[in-house]
């Protein structure tokens, strides 16, 4: 394990010496304390799409899910202090429409139609600190808290006990949820990047109180920074109502870059 770690650090240092400093443009920096430049737009196929309102304010939303399960986030950059870049992220998440849609009889029914899904939304706030140990490497630590507001009772039997979905919806069945994690990303060579992150979710007020997501991807970026292709894995652990479970999922995404 120690050798693997040393090799990994060696590759990072080596690639850092010979690579261009494309990360300083703040492209492809979702999940970090960096905000994308003003008027830069990065629509993604599966991940949140980002838009730079100003150089310090970034808006993100999911284009495909916006009508079904809208989630909007604002990231505000608060500057850099002693090499540490600070940002806060504030989001709102409205799952009612999606949950009502999948609360149906027959194929596609993820929730039993016998239950009523109330109007509800969640507000999340997250603090991010990024640091560059090397020129083309960003290390980010983040922590946050999510609160749910419901306009009616939500039966606990309506949980969708699947990775990713259960994690995002758990806050609606319990007390507030908090999260903390690390994001580590960089470039091997100018066009080829990597990302490794770990997110921990702590759900209050329940025995099913801990979930974890670890993502590792390799990313190819086009020469003009107009396309990024990510492929890798997502490893999920969760204490679900049925008990602890692990899931290993494939990750693939296309993110387009428009403007600079």
């Amino acid at each position, binding site marked *: 394990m120690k050798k693997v770690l040393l090799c990994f650090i060696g590759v990072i240092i080596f690639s850092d010496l010979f690579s261009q400093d494309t990360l300083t443009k703040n492209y492809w920096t979702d999940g970090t304390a960096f905000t994308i430049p003003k008027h830069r737009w990065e629509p993604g196929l599966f991940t949140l799409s980002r838009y730079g309102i100003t150089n310090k304010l970034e808006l993100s939303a999911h284009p495909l899910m916006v009508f079904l399960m809208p989630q909007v986030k604002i990231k505000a950059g608060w500057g850099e202090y002693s090499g540490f870049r600070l940002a806060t992220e504030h989001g709102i998440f409205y799952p009612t429409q999606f949950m009502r849609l999948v609360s*149906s009889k027959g*194929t596609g*029914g*993820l*929730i*039993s*139609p*016998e*239950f009523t899904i109330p109007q509800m939304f969640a507000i999340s706030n997250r603090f991010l600190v990024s640091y560059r140990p090397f020129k083309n490497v960003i290390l980010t630590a983040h922590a946050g808290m999510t609160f749910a507001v419901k306009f009616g009772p939500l039966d606990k039997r309506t949980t969708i006990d699947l990775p990713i979905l259960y994690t995002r919806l758990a806050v609606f069945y319990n007390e507030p949820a908090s999260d903390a994690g690390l994001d580590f990303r960089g470039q091997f060579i100018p066009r080829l990047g990597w990302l490794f992150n770990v997110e921990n979710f702590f759900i209050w007020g329940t025995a099913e109180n801990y979930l974890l997501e670890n993502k590792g991807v390799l990313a190819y970026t086009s020469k003009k920074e107009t396309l990024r292709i990510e492929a890798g894995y997502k490893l999920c652990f969760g204490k679900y109502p*049925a008990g602890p479970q692990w899931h290993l999922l494939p990750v693939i995404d296309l993110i387009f870059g428009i403007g600079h």
Partner: protein
Amino acid sequence: MTWNIRFGAGRIPWFGDACGNRVILSEDEVYGSLRAIAGKINTVKPDILLLQEVDINSKRSGYIDQLQWLLDHTYFNYAVYGSQWKAQFIPSDGLGRMEEGNVILSRWKISDATRLQLALRSDQDKLTRYFYERCCMVTARIDIPHIDNFYAVNIHASAFATDDTKQKHIIQFKDELDRINKNGGWFVAGGDLNTLPPGSDTTDYCIQDMCSWESFHSAGDDPLHKEGSNYEPEKHWLEALYESYQCAVPLDTYQASQFKYFTHTTRGAHFWDRTLDYLFTNYQWVDHSVVTHQEATGESDHAPVSVLIMIPK
């Protein structure tokens, strides 16, 4: 004793088998049914118990491990579980996770337990079949003192197959009993065969089982018969079993007064209207010892059947 306990749903109108709109039961509902089931078991006190439809980690029954709960609340210390329906997530009707199976409980130690896969339905599309139950049979040797070749066999045959799947299950069941018999073993075997004894007066329950929004037997109805309710094509399927082994309720006894041995109904507010549950042996039952516990109307949509067996020397 054999008993299909309907995953602790009691007589709740579940969507899958009782024209209901209920899918996910509350923990209180399931524990209520389990308490009633355990009460009946503790009253009858069978030495060997064959259970069907036992959930051990299903969303529909509150993720309650019903087998463990029954072990904790009855006198049984030994059990074997064979998975009948296992899906991490069924994306239909909100079913979610499913883990249901057949169980053999025993006062005596159990060994050599085997789960035997039964034929899969061929009348379903591939997507449905992927998430659907895989009917099975569980066999186990019961280590009764001084008898080293006594077996219990528990089967839950297909309930809704409209092809020859159920017939295949019955043939597989008999083949297994023949194998034990041929090897000099003794057995008590049974379960929910989901078909009627030969000579039953009524063989078509489509109208009785019909939901308010359904129509059968009329011109233009497609299907003409309700899935799992028309036993007419099956009326000879159990004859070979009856001819080879002793049924706890002999055929002539059943045919003389059928309603006394009815063990099932699909309708929540109705009394038992057909016999689907059986016990067979290749040795000898104690005469007139069989009891169809028709008074147990609230615990499940099946009545338990118990009988005393002579122990071979």
